[in-house]
C-alpha cells in the first residue's frame, strides 16, 4: 500500500528554489532514507509535506487522500509525525508532560485511556536516559532528540519523519538507535529518515532518496542508490 506520495513538490523562498519538483512514494513498511548534501532541501521537503511550511506548488497524497497544504496539526491527526533537526522542546515542561501533549492530542485521542501511562511507555520505548520529570530545558541535544522521538511516537503515527536523529551519536550509540528504529518499524510504522551517517542508513533503510539542489537525483533500493555514480559524486564525495 502506498503511504505517501508527492508529485512535483516545489518550495521556493523568494528567488531560491529549495525543493524543485520532487516526486516520490513511500510504501507501507518502508524505511526510506533521505540523503543529500547540506542545504539540498531535505528539511524543507519534509516541512512542506508535514505542513510546517506549505509547498509553493505540487501535490501531496497521504493514504490516497490529497493533503497538500494541510496544517501540521491536521497532518498529525491524519497520522504523520515528525521530529526536528534542531531540537524543539517545550522548555518549561517535564519530559513526561511533553510526551503527553502528543498522546492526548495526537492521532488517537480516544485510544489512549491513560495518557500518563502511555507517555511513560513511550519514554521507555525510546530508551530515554533521564528521569521522566526532568525539565526539557536541562537536557542536552542528544537527550532532546530522544524526547522528541518519544513525543512523535506518542501520537500514534502511521508515518514518521525523522530529521537527523542520529547526529551527535558515537558509533557505539548508533546501535541503540538501530534497535529503536527496528522496534518502531515492527509496530507497522513507515519511516522517512534524513540522515548523514551512512553507516546507519545502509544498515536500516530499504530504500533511499537522494536530492541535490532541491532536485531528486536518485530513488530506489538502498544499494542501488548508494552505488549510483551521481549520488557518489554529489553526496558521498571522496570520503567513500
Amino acid at each position, binding site marked *: 500500500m502506498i503511504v505517501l506520495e508527492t508529485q512535483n513538490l516545489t518550495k521556493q*523562498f523568494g528567488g531560491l528554489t529549495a525543493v524543485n519538483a520532487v516526486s516520490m512514494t513511500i510504501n507501507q513498511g518502508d524505511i526510506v532514507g533521505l*540523503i*543529500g*548534501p*547540506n*542545504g*539540498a532541501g531535505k*528539511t524543507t521537503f519534509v516541512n512542506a509535506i508535514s505542513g510546517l511550511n506549505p509547498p509553493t506548488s505540487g501535490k501531496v497524497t497521504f493514504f490516497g487522500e490529497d493533503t497538500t497544504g494541510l496544517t501540521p496539526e491536521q497532518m498529525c491527526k491524519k497520522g504523520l509525525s515528525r521530529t526536528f*533537526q*534542531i531540537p524543539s522542546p517545550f522548555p518549561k515542561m517535564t519530559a513526561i508532560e511533553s510526551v503527553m501533549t502528543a498522546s492526548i492530542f495526537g492521532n488517537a485521542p480516544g485510544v489512549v485511556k491513560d495518557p500518563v501511562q502511555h507517555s511513560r511507555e513511550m519514554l521507555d520505548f525510546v530508551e530515554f536516559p533521564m528521569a521522566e520529570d526532568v525539565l526539557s530545558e536541562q537536557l*542536552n*541535544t*542528544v*537527550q532532546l532528540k530522544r524526547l522528541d522521538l518519544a513525543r512523535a511516537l506518542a501520537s500514534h503515527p502511521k508515518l514518521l519523519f525523522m530529521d*537527523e536523529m542520529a*547526529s*551527535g*551519536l*558515537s*558509533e*557505539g*550509540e*548508533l*546501535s541503540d538507535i538501530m534497535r529503536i528504529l527496528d522496534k518502531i518499524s515492527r509496530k507497522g510504522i513507515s519511516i522517512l529518515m534524513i540522515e*548523514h551517517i*551512512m553507516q546507519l542508513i545502509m544498515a536500516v533503510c530499504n530504500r533511499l532518496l537522494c536530492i541535490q539542489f532541491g532536485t531528486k537525483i536518485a530513488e530506489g533500493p538502498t544499494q542501488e542508490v548508494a552505488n549510483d555514480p551521481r549520488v557518489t559524486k*554529489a*553526496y*558521498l*564525495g*571522496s*570520503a*567513500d
Partner: protein
Amino acid sequence: MLLEIKELDAGYGYLQILRKVSLNVDKGEYVCIVGPNGAGKSTTMKTIAGLISPMAGSITFNGEEITGLPAYQITQKGIAFVSEEMNLFVNMSVQENLLMGAYIIRDKNVQKERLEFVFDLFPRLAERKTQLAGTMSGGERKMLAIGRGMMSDPTLMLVDEPSFGLAPQLTASVFESLEVLRKTGVTIMLVEQNVTTTLSITDRGYVLENGKVGLEGKSSDLLNDAYVKKVFLGV
C-alpha cells in the same frame, strides 16, 4: 606547553560536571577528546573558552594564567572556539558573520586576507555571501561557524563536534580543512563523536567519562585499546 589544564572543576550553577580534569596540548599538536554523551566534553571546551568560569583548578595558555578570564579576553589571547550550537549571528549575512569573526583584528587588509582564506576553504560560503545566516541549512551553518572561528587567525582552535549534521562529503572536507589549518601551524583541539575517524586523524587523545579523564595517549594506541573498542565502537 601551549595549553595546560590542571585539576579543573567546572559545571553549571551548583551542578558540578568536571572533576579534576587535567589535560595539556603542545604547540602544533592535534588533540582530540572523545567520550560518551554528557561526559563533559563540551563543558571542558566552554570552560577553556571562558564561557564558564571554573570552580577550581587552573588553565595556562602560552605560559600565562587565563583561569577565569572572560571569554573576550581569551579570544584576544589567540584561542578560537567553534561551539556545538554554532552561535551564529542569525540576522547578519554570511560575510558579516565572517567579518565579526575577525573582530579582534583591526587591520582591514588582514581581515580581507582571512576572508579569502575562508572562502577558499568553503566555496559554498562564498556563493552565499549575502544570505542571512538564519536562513542557511544546518550544514551550511556549521561551515559558517568553523569559518568564523578561523577568521581570528587563532593559535589554538577549539572545535566542538564539527561533523554534527554534516553530509559525509562535507564532513570529509571539514576534516580536510582542519588538516589544512593545522599545516599552517594552528594547534587544534577537537571534540567528536565519530571515534574512529577522530582517532585516525589526530595525534593524541583523551577519553572523558563522567567528567573525569579516563584514558589518554596517542590516538593510534587508543584506537586499538580494548576498552575503547568495546565502549565506543560497539565491537
